[in-house]
């Protein structure tokens, strides 16, 4: 019984971790066709600004988390203007040499990976220069629950609930609001969307800012439990990356399903063979999933649905 409960907690923990780490990346990948290799460092921005808001400004934790998410969203907006769309360098170039020098990185997957990896190098080393090799951590709230010989941090269980809440909020944003409709129109067919009056450039800007904000929120939520180091982002990147491609192009549903699948596999192997093999099992699952479901889980669902409709 106790062992079974432990398994459930391990699963919830993995699930929350994967969903929170992946969702921001999934939004940016699904809508803009950008693979943001600096995603882990966006999480770092959220975590650091939350920690600083608590330790330096003395804000209550919940307020500090909102500050962390907003700070990352604004940072993401800057990155979008300078690097992803090249709007700012082009504005400068227009005024000095009279022509554009940067082509936007939208839908240039390989180039976007390389450019954002450069950004992540700058951010990791920048964090190290400014804040040093580690930072004071804020205390984990809520204490522990204990059962049998195990005890478990309550905060981590709360995180699982929060991650489902965030999934629901993002789902609402993309399916029930005007912005969500414009964003989905832009993914489907950018040219037509623009012809129908959608300001696609603004949609991209907003999407990148929202994706960054969600990444920052993940960092804010992990701030009380993760070690605050300049390299902390890389702990999230791989899992996020894997969850996004296993999930497929539908940001919310894909992240939820792949978080469930990968979380279950990681929890199962970690409890039997140790954390190292849990991670290896997760990665091997991802490789196999990509080989057999190249469009991810949601792509597979889509295919099955289309086939059923045709059969009718």
């Amino acid at each position, binding site marked *: 019984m106790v062992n079974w409960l432990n398994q459930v907690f391990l699963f919830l923990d993995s699930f929350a971790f994967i969903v929170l780490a992946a969702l921001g990346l999934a939004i940016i990948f699904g809508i803009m066709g950008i693979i943001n290799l600096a995603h882990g460092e966006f999480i770092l921005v959220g975590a650091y600004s939350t920690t600083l808001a608590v330790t330096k400004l003395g804000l209550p934790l919940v307020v500090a988390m909102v500050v962390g998410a907003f700070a990352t969203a604004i940072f993401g907006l800057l990155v979008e203007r300078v690097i992803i769309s090249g709007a700012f360098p082009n504005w400068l170039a227009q005024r000095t040499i009279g022509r554009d020098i940067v082509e936007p990185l939208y839908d240039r997957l390989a180039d976007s990976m390389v450019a954002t990896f450069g950004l992540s190098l700058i951010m990791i080393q920048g964090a190290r220069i400014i804040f040093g090799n580690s930072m004071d951590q804020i205390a984990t709230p809520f204490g522990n629950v204990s059962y049998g010989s195990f005890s478990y941090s309550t905060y981590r269980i709360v995180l699982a609930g929060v991650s489902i809440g965030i999934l629901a909020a993002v789902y609402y944003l993309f399916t029930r609001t005007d912005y969500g409709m414009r964003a989905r129109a832009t993914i489907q067919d950018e040219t037509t969307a623009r012809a129908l009056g959608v300001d696609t450039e603004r949609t991209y800007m907003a999407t990148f800012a929202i994706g960054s904000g969600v990444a920052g929120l993940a960092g804010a939520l992990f701030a009380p439990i993760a070690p605050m180091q300049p390299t902390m982002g890389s702990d999230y990147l791989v899992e996020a990356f894997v969850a996004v491609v296993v999930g497929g192009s539908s940001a919310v549903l894909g992240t939820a399903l792949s978080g469930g699948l990968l979380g279950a596999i990681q929890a199962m192997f970690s409890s039997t063979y140790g954390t190292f093999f849990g991670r290896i099992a997760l*990665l091997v699952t991802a490789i196999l999933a990509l*080989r057999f479901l190249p469009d991810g889980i949601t792509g597979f669902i889509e295919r099955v649905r289309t086939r059923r409709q045709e059969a009718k």
Partner: protein
Amino acid sequence: MSVSESGPNRSVITRLRDRLEGPNTIGNSKMFWAGFGVALLALLVFPVFGNAQQFSLFLVLALLGLSLSLVWGYSGVLSFGQVAFFGIGGYTFGVVSINFATPQGITGAVIVGILAGAIGAALLGYFMFYGGVRDVYVTIITLVTVMVLHTFMAQTAGSEWTIGEAALGGFNGMPRIPLLTLGFEGLSFQFLYNDILLTVPGMGIVELDPFYYLALAILVITYLGLRVLVNSDYGRVMVAIREDETRTQLFGYNVIQVKFVAFTLGGALAGLSGVLYAARNVFIDPTVFTLLFATLPVIWVSVGGRKSLLGAIVATIAIEYIRVSMEGELALVLLGALLTVTILVLPGGFVPWVYRMVQKRTNPADIDGRETPDASTEVTDS
């Protein structure tokens, strides 16, 4: 081109140049080969003046850069996992050479290491290309493969992870790899820690590092060999796949097989590079499988110009030299900025851009039409 006169009177050099030149490489002029000769001469005498022991590392890594240029720049398959085959080659070399520490054994270990890189790439390539994995998913699978290897090698500290005499050693790595000795019992030469003494007039006795010359020779031979390959008919098909995969398939080429072969060949080259890396350091550890190290080849090749073999070599040596000599805090910041700015402003890379500039300045009329056609000016049907 004016040199390729037809008929039996063509000299050996002209015929050789014909094989080495074509639309897929930059540098198809007498000027280029003169410059190539000067650069080679400079590299040959470099150990007299500079730190050859350090420089040999850059030459070894340039091989890794070349392997990615072949796979990504020429076949259009962005492998984020070239270091997987590099590491497999290095580790295999270590295990085999520790167990058979005789000249034959070590020579064999070099070959087995290269084969291990090739087999690793072939297995992964077969799984991906024949399974219909395409585009960015290939990139992600190769990246995840590196992560699997890193996680796996990091936990091999226990004594159960010992192959014969060789302990894999987890995070601590595998020390005591034998010195690189090629040949067989009775006729062998040790390339590491075996200075050649040479008397230079005016400078006295100079110590030369044979490993440096071995690495240089392998690099030059590989570069010329790859030039022949990418300018051959097979190379043209590779480039066609890079530019438009569907169209190449419709012309009847076996796209999957070509990508598979190029990927395997790239794996063998990366394996060779890994073997030389492990031999040079007499040590290898799981840092060869980290995300930062996995990204370095992509950085070298993008900055240098991925559609150019020469670009890969020049950028690898330059960037690694900068990285090693700038031990300061700002080194990684500058490297990251260099990478991002290059991708944004010069997506084609530095070396082709410099080459175009030089060509325009020296001889504006002599754009001889054998250079790579610019893909974006082609008519596309999308």
